[in-house]
């Protein structure tokens, strides 16, 4: 099920992380456990849950926590314990970031989420310290991550961002993806510090920056329907693009969005922008050699290009069916009918 070796090579590390997270959840006060399980099983699927869910594509990227393992490999970190701890710190950071983002999305006070945020954040900092104990030397990195988070929250409250004319540009996506840098930069940088290669932190930052912009488009393509229901369409690059193309300032609705999935121009623009960011991220990682960091991006570029082509093909078939259906309505005798309409008439 795990597919590529870039994931399956670390299956034992993953099990180790899962046991740690399950143990953390078990250590919480009983009243907090359901919410903690929601984040670790339902929302982020770190720990195996009992829910049935759609099997994700084997080729779909799963960068967290694997990014930590790939960076460790690329930088020559041989210590298994440190590698696992860096992956664990990335998971802690992801859980805390997700909860913090939810809190900022729903300003109403939620003491359970606030307590969980403090719990996971404490675990995160403790684990980061185990990877690289000299936190004074590491201060620059954590300050940089904090600044990224502040800029992200400021951007979320800036009304002009919603009216951005080019939502697939780096200018827009750099802001909408800053949370990713805030989440992942300290754990990955800690690895560079731990192996005495802190000069690689700018390269890691650039990799993360470019990758996260492409990833944000992917995320927005996955979540477009959910984002429709959120205030300001959750500042989704996909929905802002569609709204701009429609030439009005109103939020788009479901039919508007579905109609644009039939547009070759929309599909090409979205997927080409995504892949171009992945290419830049790959360039950033290339000097580290033939690592899983570049292999991951090669896989994702192939995957997304295949998806784009299949989506274009599917849209073309749908347009063709609709065209023939219209001809049937107005000139029924001379044209074939849609298979689904044929069935409904039988």
């Amino acid at each position, binding site marked *: *099920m*795990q597919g590529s070796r870039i*994931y399956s090579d670390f299956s034992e590390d*993953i099990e180790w*992380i899962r046991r740690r997270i399950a143990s953390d959840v078990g250590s919480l006060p009983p009243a907090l456990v359901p919410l903690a399980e929601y984040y670790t099983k339902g929302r*982020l*699927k*770190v720990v*195996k849950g009992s*829910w*049935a*869910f*759609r*099997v*994700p*594509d084997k080729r*779909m*990227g*799963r*960068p*967290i926590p694997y990014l930590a393992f790939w960076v460790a490999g690329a930088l020559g970190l041989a210590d298994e314990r440190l590698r696992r701890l860096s992956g664990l710190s990335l*998971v802690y950071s*992801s859980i805390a970031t997700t909860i913090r983002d939810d809190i900022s999305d729903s300003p109403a006070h939620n003491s359970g989420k606030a307590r969980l945020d403090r719990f996971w954040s404490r675990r995160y900092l403790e684990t980061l310290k185990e990877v690289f104990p000299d936190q004074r030397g590491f201060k620059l990195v954590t300050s940089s991550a904090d600044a990224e988070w502040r800029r992200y929250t400021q951007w979320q409250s800036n009304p002009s961002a919603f009216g951005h004319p080019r939502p697939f540009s780096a200018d827009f996506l750099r802001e909408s993806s800053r949370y990713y840098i805030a989440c992942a930069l300290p754990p990955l940088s800690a690895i560079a510090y731990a192996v005495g290669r802190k000069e690689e932190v700018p390269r890691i930052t650039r990799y993360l920056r470019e990758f996260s912009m492409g*990833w944000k488009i992917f*995320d927005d*393509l*996955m979540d*477009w*329907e959910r984002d429709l229901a959120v205030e300001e369409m959750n500042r989704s690059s996909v929905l802002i693009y569609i709204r701009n*193309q*429609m*030439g009005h300032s109103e939020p788009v609705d479901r*039919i*508007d969005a*579905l*109609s644009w*999935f*039939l547009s070759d121009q*929309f599909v090409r623009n979205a997927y080409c922008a995504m892949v171009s960011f992945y290419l830049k991220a790959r360039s950033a990682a290339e000097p580290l050699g033939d690592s899983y960091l570049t292999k991951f991006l090669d896989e994702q570029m192939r995957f997304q290009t*295949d*998806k784009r082509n*299949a*989506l274009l*093909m*599917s*849209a073309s078939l*749908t*347009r063709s*069916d*609709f*065209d023939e*259906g*219209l001809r*049937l*309505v*107005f000139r*029924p005798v001379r044209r074939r009918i849609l298979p*689904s*309409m044929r069935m*409904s008439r039988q």
Partner: protein
Amino acid sequence: MGSIRSTFVRVNSDPTYRARFLKDPISTLEKEGIKLTTKEGEDLTKLVRTLEKHLTKLGELPRGYDALIDEVEGKRSVRESGDPGPLII
């Protein structure tokens, strides 16, 4: 005044017009001076409902490649329980 032919072209090539047409095909055509018979109106409504089902699947496709291939090949997408490994995105 529009024509049936220009409607075909715009529905195919103009996503904004297509969205308006999908939401209310009969009124969209009437505004362009195209009057439909009752039979045409009923068939058009049925066609748009059918198309919306196609479109819904199309809109789901960015979530998964397997689903995409299923769609192209006309198969049903599969729901299973299982362990895909961590999925933290």
